[in-house]
C-alpha cells in the first residue's frame, strides 16, 4: 500500500519536471521563432542556405543512421564503433583524393576521380565493418547484458587509436577541387554544387539500399532475421551470413557518408567519426531504431533542426551567434526524444511482446 503511494508521488514529481521541460522548450521554440521572423534580420537567401545545409548534412546523417539501425535490427546491438567506420572511409577516401589531386585527375576528370574516391572509401569501410563483426562482435553473440556494448566501445577506441597511430593526430585538409567550390544559380539564389552532389548521390544510394532490403532475397532474409532470428534459422537461413551482409550494407553507406562528410568539412582526422556517429545514432533513435525509413527520416530531420534551428529558435531571443549552438540544439532534440518518445517517430516500443 505505502509502496504504491510512494511510487505514485515520485512519479508525479518527475512528471512535473518533465512537463516544465516540455513547456520550456516549446516556449523557446515558439517565442524564438516568432521573434526571429518579426525581426527579419535574415534574408531569404540566408534561410535557403540553412535549409540546403540542413538537407546536405541530414543526408549524411541519414546514411550513417542506416548502419546503426540495420545492425540494431538484426543483432539488438548498438554498434558504437559505426562512427569510426565512417572515419575509416573518410581516411581511405582522403588518400585516394590526395592521389588524384597530385596527378591532376581530380580537376580534369571529376566523375572518374569521385568514383575512384568513393570506391576506395567504400571498400575500406566495408572490410573494416565486416572484420569488426567477425573478430569483435561474433564472440559476444549470445552474451547478455552490457558486455557487447562495452566491446563496441572498445572497438571504437581501437579504430580511433589505430588511425591516430598510423596517420598521426593532426588534421589533414581534404582536397578542394574547383568544380566542387562552384555553385548553381537558380532564380538568383546560389546553391553550392557540393550540396547538390552530396544530396543527390545520397538519395541515389539510399534508394538502392532500400531496393536491396525490400526486393532481394538477402534483403528479405535480413528483415526476417531482424524479426525472429531463430525462426529464420529454422527456415535454412544462415543467420551469420545475413549478419555479415548487414554489416556490409552498413559499411558501404558509412564509406560514402565518410567521403561526403569530409568533402563538406574539408578535413579528416582520427576522431572525426565521433560527432556525426553519435548524432546519426540519435537520428536512428529519433526515427525509431530498427526502422530503415525511420533512419532516413530521422537523419534529414536532425540535419534540418541542427541547421535551421539555432538561428530560427535562438536569434529572436537575443542569443548572439546562435549558429555556434548547433550541437546544443541537436543534442537537446535527441535528449527530448529519448525522454518523451523513446520508441522514435516510426518505431515500436523496444520490448515487443512475442506472440
Amino acid at each position, binding site marked *: 500500500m505505502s509502496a504504491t503511494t510512494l511510487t505514485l508521488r515520485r512519479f508525479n514529481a518527475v512528471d512535473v519536471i518533465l512537463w516544465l521541460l516540455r513547456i520550456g522548450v516549446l516556449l523557446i521554440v515558439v517565442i524564438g521563432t516568432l521573434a526571429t521572423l518579426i525581426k527579419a534580420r535574415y534574408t531569404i537567401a540566408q534561410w535557403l542556405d540553412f535549409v540546403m545545409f540542413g538537407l546536405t548534412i541530414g543526408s549524411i546523417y541519414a546514411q550513417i543512421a542506416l548502419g546503426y539501425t540495420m545492425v540494431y535490427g538484426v543483432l539488438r546491438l548498438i554498434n558504437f564503433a559505426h562512427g569510426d567506420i565512417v572515419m575509416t572511409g573518410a581516411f581511405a577516401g582522403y588518400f585516394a583524393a590526395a592521389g588524384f589531386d597530385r596527378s591532376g585527375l581530380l580537376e580534369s576528370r571529376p566523375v572518374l576521380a569521385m568514383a575512384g574516391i568513393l570506391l576506395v572509401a567504400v571498400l575500406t569501410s566495408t572490410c573494416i565493418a565486416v572484420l569488426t563483426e567477425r573478430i569483435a562482435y561474433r564472440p559476444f553473440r549470445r552474451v547478455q547484458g552490457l558486455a557487447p556494448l562495452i566491446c563496441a566501445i572498445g572497438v571504437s577506441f581501437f579504430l580511433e587509436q589505430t588511425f591516430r597511430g598510423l596517420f598521426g593526430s593532426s588534421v589533414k585538409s581534404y582536397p578542394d577541387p574547383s568544380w566542387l567550390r562552384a555553385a548553381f544559380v537558380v532564380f538568383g539564389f546560389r546553391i553550392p554544387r557540393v550540396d547538390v552532389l552530396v544530396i543527390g548521390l545520397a538519395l541515389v544510394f539510399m534508394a538502392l539500399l532500400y531496393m536491396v532490403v525490400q526486393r532481394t532475397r538477402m534483403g*528479405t532474409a535480413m528483415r526476417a532475421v531482424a524479426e525472429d532470428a531463430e*525462426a*529464420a*534459422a*529454422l527456415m*535454412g*537461413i*544462415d543467420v551469420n551470413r545475413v549478419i555479415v551482409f548487414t554489416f556490409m550494407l552498413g559499411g558501404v553507406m558509412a564509406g560514402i557518408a565518410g567521403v561526403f562528410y569530409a568533402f563538406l568539412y574539408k578535413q579528416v582526422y582520427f576522431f572525426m567519426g565521433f560527432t556525426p556517429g553519435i548524432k546519426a545514432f540519435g537520428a536512428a533513435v529519433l526515427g525509431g531504431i530498427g526502422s530503415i525509413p525511420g533512419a532516413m527520416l530521422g537523419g534529414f530531420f536532425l540535419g534540418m533542426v541542427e541547421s535551421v534551428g539555432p538561428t530560427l529558435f535562438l536569434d529572436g531571443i537575443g542569443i548572439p551567434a546562435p549558429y555556434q549552438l548547433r550541437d546544443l540544439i541537436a543534442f537537446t532534440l535527441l535528449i527530448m526524444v529519448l525522454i518523451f518518445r523513446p520508441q522514435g517517430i516510426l518505431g515500436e516500443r523496444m520490448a515487443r511482446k512475442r506472440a
Partner: protein
Amino acid sequence: MALLEIDDIHVFYDKIEALKGVSMSVEEGRIVTLVGGNGAGKSTTLRAVSGLLHPRQGAIRYAGETLGQYGAHEIAAMGLVQVPEGRRIFGRLTVNENLEMGAFTQKNRQQIAEDRERMLTLFPRLRERLRQVAGTLSGGEQQMVATARAMMARPRALLMDEPSMGLSPMMVEQVFETIRTINAQGVTVLLVEQNALLALSIADTGYVMESGRIVLSGSGPELLDDERVRRAYLG
C-alpha cells in the same frame, strides 16, 4: 533403418536437465506424435532435433548422418524442417515474402514458383492475402502461413510443434486434415501435441512424455486404448 533416430539424448538449460535420456525413432513416410503435458520437454526435443539446442549426451541421427555438428540452418537445408511452437511467422513480412523465406534453401526459381502454387492450392485463403503483411492475419491463417512456409523448404520430414495451439475447433480440424494431406504426399511428420486424442488418432506411432522422459510408446490406436493415457490425457 528409421529416417530420424533420437538416441538417449540429455538436454540441459544451464543446470536444469530438461531431457533425461529421450529415445525415439521416426520411420520414413509415417506420422509420429509426441504427446505430453505442459513442460514435459516436447519442444525441447524438437529444438534439439533442429539444432537450436545441443544434447550434452546422446545422439540424433537423420538419414544416416549424426546431426551433432550441424547448425540449425544446415539441418533445415537437409530437409528436416520445423514449424515452431507459436508459429513464429515473420509478422512484418508479407505472406509472399514468408513463403519466399521458406524457400531460402531452394535455388531453382521455377521449382519455387511451382511449390508456391501447390501451397496456394492447399491453402486457397492465402492466395488473396499474398501481398498482405502476415502479422495482420487471423490465427488460423497464420498457422497456414507457418505450414506453407515450412513446406516451401521441401522437407523430407516436417516437425510440427503444437500446430493446433490457440485455434478454434474448426481450424484445429483443418490443421489435422492438412497434416494428413502433407503426409500422403510422402512427407514424414513428427507432430508434437497437447491435444493427445486428435494427435494419436492420426498417428502411426505415438510417444508419451513426462518430465523429460518417454514414459509410454506404441501405435496410435494402442495408446488411445491405454488406460494410463486415457486417464492422464483424455479425461
